[in-house]
């Protein structure tokens, strides 16, 4: 069945595909870190008893979660430079460039999802722990940093990583702003050499192997953690 296949094309494309994979991994990692940091802040805002904090965070999360990711990427690439030009009145104001605008779009988009995960994680820590921290005289900030968040993140690690795996796949959408990630690299080679089947099969295989082993790792982590509990 593979008689008509040209496996050589894959081998020749490997260095280029490798670069694409590095881009994909880098973007995933940066957006994940940014998303978790920002998501934690949003989660703390949403849990605040001050409406001035919780309402904007809630609005933000609901807006981003009801918007397709591809639209957010477009916004940041095409609309933000336009808005900057309008606001500053400088017709030559440059955009951020595709990489930075994509990174910001992914970070902001992921932050909305991480916010909800982290909010649930914080709420999973029993209220008595908050009382105990406060009773010692710890401030809100100290209680969060030393008592609540460490426990919350420990509970959340599997689901945070799972969200990261989804993000890893979603980064393939950067092709819409002309960036070349792993998927983009595969696609370009496929079209240049007219080897669509080989390249797309290869890309699928690599995505599958990486995501499957990552979810396996998450499962292992979860099992290990549950034993220790």
């Amino acid at each position: 069945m593979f008689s008509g296949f040209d496996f050589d094309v894959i081998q020749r494309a490997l260095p280029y595909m490798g670069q694409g994979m590095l881009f994909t991994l880098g973007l995933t990692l940066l957006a994940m870190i940014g998303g978790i940091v920002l998501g934690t802040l949003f989660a703390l805002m949403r849990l605040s008893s001050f409406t001035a904090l919780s309402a904007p965070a809630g609005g933000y999360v609901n807006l981003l979660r009801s918007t397709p990711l591809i639209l957010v990427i477009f916004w940041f690439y095409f609309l933000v430079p336009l808005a900057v030009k309008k606001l500053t009145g400088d017709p030559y104001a440059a955009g951020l460039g595709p990489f930075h605008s994509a990174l910001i779009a992914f970070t902001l988009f992921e932050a909305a999802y991480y916010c909800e995960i982290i909010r649930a994680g914080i709420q999973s820590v029993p209220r008595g722990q908050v009382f105990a921290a406060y009773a010692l005289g710890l401030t809100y900030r100290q209680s969060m940093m030393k008592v609540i968040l460490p426990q919350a993140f420990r509970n959340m690690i599997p689901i945070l990583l799972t969200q990261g795996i989804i993000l890893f796949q979603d980064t393939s959408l950067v092709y819409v702003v002309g960036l070349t990630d792993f998927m983009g690299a595969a696609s370009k080679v496929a079209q240049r050499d007219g080897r669509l089947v080989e390249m797309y099969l290869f890309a699928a295989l690599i995505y599958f192997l990486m995501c499957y082993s990552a979810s396996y790792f998450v499962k292992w982590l979860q099992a290990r953690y549950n034993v220790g509990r």
Partner: protein
Amino acid sequence: MIEIRNIGKWYGSFQVLKNCTTRVASGEVVVVCGPSGSGKSTLIKCVNGLEPFQQGEVMVDGISVGAPDTDLPRLRSRIGMVFQNFELFPHMKVIDNINLGQVKVLGRSRDEATEKSMKLLERVGLKDHAPKYPGQLSGGQQQRVAIARALAMDPIAMLFDEPTSALDPEMINEVLDVMTELAKEGMTMMVVTHEMGFASRVAHRVVFMDHGEIEEDAKKEDFFGKPRSERAQHFLSKILHH
């Protein structure tokens, strides 16, 4: 030391505390008892501001707990509190549980704090358990660690919120022994508990609550000898009759 004046608290339209007034003098041990849902735990949490209240005033060492300009963390650091479910921090070793407040709130050095913590662990009979995690200890041991954690802050008073209610019967005494010793040393204590034996041995005064009200606030001898209110008589007859 602790003055509770006419406080009232509502959850929505439901009033959980109604005009509660009582006091704990320096060196005094006051036991708060009453049927479950009577507001005892809520009342004791008002003393260090863990539960906000809408009416009245609580003064601790002359400082108003409810006043908006009160430095609550600072005030709380001077009042020890022990909870029904221990509430040790499960992700920290026993020794780090006791060090945390000393280092973060009182600004002691880690060495200083550890020295103090080890002394307190020895006092509650758990010196060898310092490097363990709370999950590796029995309930009674965890509660003794929690008492050590509260004492490490050199509190001017201690609040106990049903400290033995979550314990297996055979572990209750090891916790009560530590508390009895504390009382003998002259610690100011407010204790919510159903342990009437402890109350009759250790308390100076007993406060009886029902339906969010303080029904009776009497010297121990008077309370156990002849409670005035009918509800207190009923409660005592139920709790002592076995």
